[in-house]
């Protein structure tokens, strides 16, 4: 049985027919062709599928599209302003915080939520807050550096 699910994605109002079981990540990738959000493990562990729903980071492989009805969703495609990268994307670029890049969309989305929730950040906190995101290139060192570099930029204290 299908029914229409509507939400705002990256500022645009969208609608699509979904089954009850349609996951938010399937809605984004298959209905809207927004393939920047990745499916890594499909078991809620790797965090490659992290997006923001009403400003909060969630694993879109573990949320039904129906649960996001009427919500404001932001994906990795919604961050940059034209050719100007979001400060977190820029920090990842500056700090070489990726190798293969598969985990990067989820890392960036988690990192932005982390900065939003913390007035101050230190390395230990960043590592604890990154527990929901796996990087199999073992590139955590530069990811942590990038997040610590982006924090003051996003907070306007750089």
């Amino acid at each position, binding site marked *: 049985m299908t029914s229409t699910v509507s939400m705002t994605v990256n500022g645009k109002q969208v609608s699509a027919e979904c089954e009850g*079981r349609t996951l938010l990540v399937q809605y984004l990738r298959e209905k809207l062709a927004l393939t920047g959000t990745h499916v890594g493990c499909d078991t809620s562990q790797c965090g490659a599928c992290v997006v923001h729903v009403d400003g909060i980071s969630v694993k879109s492989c573990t949320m039904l599209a129906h649960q996001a009805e009427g919500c404001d969703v932001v994906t990795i495609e919604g961050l940059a302003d034209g050719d100007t990268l979001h400060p977190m994307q820029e920090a990842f670029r500056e700090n070489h915080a990726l190798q293969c890049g598969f985990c990067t969309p989820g890392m960036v989305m988690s990192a932005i939520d982390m900065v939003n929730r913390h007035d101050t950040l230190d390395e230990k906190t960043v590592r604890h807050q990154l527990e929901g995101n796996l990087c199999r290139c073992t590139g955590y060192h530069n990811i942590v550096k990038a997040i610590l570099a982006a924090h003051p930029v996003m907070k306007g204290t750089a």
Partner: protein
Amino acid sequence: MYDFNYRKASSVEDAVSAVTGAEDGRFLAGGMTIIPTIKQRLANPSDLVDLAGVGGLTGISVSGNTVEIGGMARHAEVNASSEVAAAIPALARLAGGIGDPQVRNRGTIGGSIANNDPAADYPAAVVGLGATVRTNRREIAGDDFFTGMFETALEPGELVTGVSFPVPSKAAYMKFPNPASRYAIVGVFVAATSGGPRVAVTGAGPCVFRVAEMEQALAGNFAPEAVADIKIGDDDLNSDIHASAEYRAHLVTVMAKRAVAQANG
């Protein structure tokens, strides 16, 4: 995963009638367990009834000697609540150690305790603090709520609307987390309550349990040394690729000792 009917409930009554009227209906709270379970085809409900739109199930309040947490309160909300942190800091810290940030942003206390995973954190707090579970039908003492592995006292069509935690004079939760999932390989919640010391263990056995011998020892002397030599038997403990029953038994003493030390500040 197999398909199911998704239904968003507008009230507790609506949710209950949707679940009881379905062929095999289940409540959907945060979905952090049931969605992965359906994906793995370990569950195949005909209907999922979403509680996210039901009023009166969210919110956290502290009045007098009680912390009230709504059944749909997310782990991240409990962790970030300054009121919880002031009244029962051990509870706020426990919530902040569940899963990962994204799981904490979605997962709920009602969903966690209704599921009663043997390695979940919240059952240790509910039993360790002697909390009361509120449902749409009645109040259930924390000691009577968890009845076995993934089993609770909840009846069909009964849902957790909230949990009341009495404020202890001191408490702490210490867990040895599985490094991948952050589930408790062993977690021990200790509290000095008005009814005496309580020690609740999660992760070690099929269901949360109390350790009477440790509670008696702490009644005489609420200090790490009081529990340091108390060993629990490993006969009924879990044994899997992560830890043997013998190792879990050992960890119960270690975590209890550390929890008492932290509770004493």
